[in-house]
């Protein structure tokens, strides 16, 4: 489309649908430009990364060349420079870290790292004990542990290199301060800064360590698993697993016997449909309920709100499991309808694909409205009332007021929230798992013993792979794809959305 840029006056002269068309076409024509600027940014980022790396190397070299003999010694014995100048606390910290690292590498790290490339070669076998004549298991390598501890060793090496760099920098600073004839910081200053200027280090160290060990490490581990054939059979202990390259990803795009393209495509499509409906039905209905309660002339507002909020407090596994049984074939709903002679046979709410999908979305409305009611109530009250006042004087009816005032305002304020809730609905495990578990099953979608069904979303599929059938390699691939979907969505939304408020605006 080669529509030229319109001036503001020309734009205002357009009719409403023309404006819409214009905006949409603008979005598409801007894609090449955006892509280009994205790659430019990427190029700049890479460029600055390499420049920084080079600057670091240069600084390391000049530190060594121009440094004092203490500085040069501390290239090998970390912290020596600090110790020699009386900064005992820093010096000891560096020295301890270095000796711990060397100790670890000699006694464990080297072994794990050496096997990391093959993930183990010695098979576990059954051998006859020569004395008793009984078959015993002789354990060989453990691929799982090799992968894990190899990864941890790599982490340690990166951390060590960083510490070493800090140590060099430290000596560089010391040399600089001494050359200018000033005094070094005392040990007391060092310790004091931990509760003052460097207080963030004290605050962050433990939480960040926890995150690295219990989130980052496991996730990188699972990313690596996607490139191996680790599953319940090749569990690493009795049967080694090995690197298989992109084989697992290849199965996503093959229609052959081992291919999972159809199942993946169908489940991904339903995941996105589900996330869309779950987000927007909740959003609009929740807003609607909030507006009803907010309306002037409605009595006992607090009671309505409290009754709805009450449902948030009860853990979902109780309410959803109960509701799931409510609609079971022999549940209360069917029994009641039959006793009223409305139906002859029980309705299989969870047995028919389409019906189950609708049920899941409807029950999710039940789950979601209280949250949305809470969130939107406050924002709705913030809309300046004189806007409505003047709209009424101009003769706008309630629906027009809603479309022209309420909705734009709400969308503007809750834009980021909508994105978050779309992403969390992609990963909305509880509702699907507790209500249907993915049923009704679709036999053709069975992958390595993991069933999948009409209401399965990616995350419940993934859970089935990890907990029921132990198909860890496919689970890792699905996990990576879920991440990709969420990341791409956020990127799109954040580049298209006009309001990117900066955090410093608040303070």
């Amino acid at each position, binding site marked *: 489309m080669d529509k030229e840029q319109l001036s503001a006056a020309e734009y205002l002269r357009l009719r409403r649908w023309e404006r819409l068309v214009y905006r949409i076409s603008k979005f598409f024509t801007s894609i090449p430009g955006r892509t280009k600027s994205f790659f430019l940014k990427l190029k700049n980022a890479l460029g600055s990364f390499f420049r920084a790396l080079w600057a670091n190397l240069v600084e390391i070299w000049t530190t060594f060349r121009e440094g004092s003999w203490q500085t040069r010694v501390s290239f090998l014995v970390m912290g020596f420079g600090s110790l020699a100048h009386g900064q005992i606390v820093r010096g000891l910290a560096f020295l301890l870290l270095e000796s711990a690292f060397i100790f670890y590498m000699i006694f464990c790290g080297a072994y794990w790292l050496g096997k990391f490339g093959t993930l183990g070669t010695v098979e576990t076998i059954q051998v006859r004990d020569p004395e008793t004549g009984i078959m015993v298991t002789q354990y060989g390598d453990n691929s799982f542990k090799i992968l894990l501890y190899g990864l941890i060793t790599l982490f340690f090496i990166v951390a060590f290199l960083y510490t070493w760099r800090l140590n060099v920098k430290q000596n560089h600073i010391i040399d600089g301060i001494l050359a200018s004839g000033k005094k070094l910081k005392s040990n007391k200053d060092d310790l004091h800064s931990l509760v003052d200027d460097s207080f963030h280090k004290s605050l962050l160290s433990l939480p960040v360590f926890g995150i690295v060990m219990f989130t980052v490490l496991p996730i990188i581990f*699972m990313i690596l698993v996607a490139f191996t054939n680790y599953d319940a059979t090749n569990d690493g202990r009795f049967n080694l697993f090995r690197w298989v390259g992109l084989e697992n990803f290849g199965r996503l795009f093959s229609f052959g016997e081992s291919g999972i393209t159809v199942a993946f495509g169908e489940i991904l499509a339903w995941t996105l449909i589900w996330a869309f409906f779950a987000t927007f039905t909740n959003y609009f209905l929740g807003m609607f309920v909030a507006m009803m309660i907010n309306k002037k002339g409605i009595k006992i507002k607090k009671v309505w709100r409290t009754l709805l909020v009450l449902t948030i407090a009860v853990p979902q596994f109780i309410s959803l499991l109960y509701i799931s049984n409510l609609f079971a074939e022999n549940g209360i709903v069917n029994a009641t309808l039959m006793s009223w002679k409305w139906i002859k046979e029980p309705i299989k709410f969870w047995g028919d694909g389409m019906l189950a999908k609708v049920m899941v979305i409807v029950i999710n409305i039940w789950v979601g409205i209280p949250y949305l009611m809470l969130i939107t109530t406050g924002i709705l009250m913030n809309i300046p009332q004189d806007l409505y006042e003047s709209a009424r004087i101009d003769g706008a009816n309630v629906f027009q007021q809603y479309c022209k005032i309420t909705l734009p305002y709400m969308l503007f304020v809750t834009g980021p929230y909508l994105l978050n809730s779309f992403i969390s609905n992609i990963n909305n*495990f509880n509702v699907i798992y507790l209500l249907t578990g993915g049923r009704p099953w679709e036999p053709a979608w069975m992958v390595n013993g993991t069933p999948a069904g009409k209401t399965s979303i990616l995350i419940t599929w993934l859970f089935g792979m*990890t907990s029921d059938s132990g198909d860890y390699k496919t689970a890792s691939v699905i996990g990576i794809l879920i991440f990709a979907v969420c990341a791409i969505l956020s990127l799109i939304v954040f580049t298209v959305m006009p309001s990117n408020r900066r955090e410093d605006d608040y303070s």
Partner: protein
Amino acid sequence: MTEDERIFEFDAEESIAGGEFDLEPAPLPPVEEPALIRAQTAYGEDKGSRRNSSVRVRSRIVNTIIHIVLAVLCTVWILPFVGILLESFRCESPGLAGYLIPKQWGFDNYVRLFTETQFPRWFLQTFLMGLVTAVVQTAFVLAVSYALSRHRFRGRRLLMNLMLIFGMFPGFLTLILLRTLMQDWGLADANAPFGLAIIYCASSGMGYYIAKGFFDTIPRSLDEAARVDGASRMQIFFKLILPLSKPIIIYTVLMAFMAPWGDFVMARFMANNNDAGYNVAAGLQWLISETKVDTNYTTFCAGGVVVALPITILFMCLQKYYVAGVTGGAVKG
């Protein structure tokens, strides 16, 4: 303008606003705006007071309808809980029944829950996990939030972006590794609550958004004034920021304490089918797994009531803080 006209105008404004009488009266338009007044009087003369009363009647009808709708809605929302409560007192049959009101009332299900299942153990384990998580998670979240909100250090953006990116991976993936690790350390299976508590706490720093958003709204000038008076960053955190952050602290504690009660996925996965290691969620869900639902359904309902009651009461007491946290977090995104 005559007295009559003024009264009439006032009336018209109100009835358009929805016929509510306890409102503050709308301010009268200043006399210097003849155009506006003329427009409004013309509007009144045209339609007359008949329209005026018809608007009032209409708004009353609308309000009645809304009251009815709200009543229906709230019934629908409360009904499942009433159902659970009623079924927990049903003694004549333990499975699914096609009716709501028990034919034979009694506490049999509660007695059975506490004597024949491991429920007391699950309850205690969950309670202790909740306590530990509440303390550690709150400390972690507040520490990370304060550091990210108030300190400007190298790598801050990078740290926040990394946490955002790693937060987009599905958490289940980490469970495979964590279970194996915890099994090696003897903290899984029957000891799963210990392992679970560690897992809940360890990564909790990633949930810093809401608390950080709150800290961001506390003016920096307060910090600077305290700095001028010679306070260290730590003193500012403990003596200035924390006392101002009561709502967000309570919100964090509440969320952290409630999380273990509803988590059935991790708890079941870590316990690895060893029912001694379950929390209430995993345990109760296990009670009505497909083969057992016909014998345990009412017991499950009793368990649901026992779990939901204390949590709901706690939640209702602290509802104000929950609302503040949720709305604050949503608006800032």
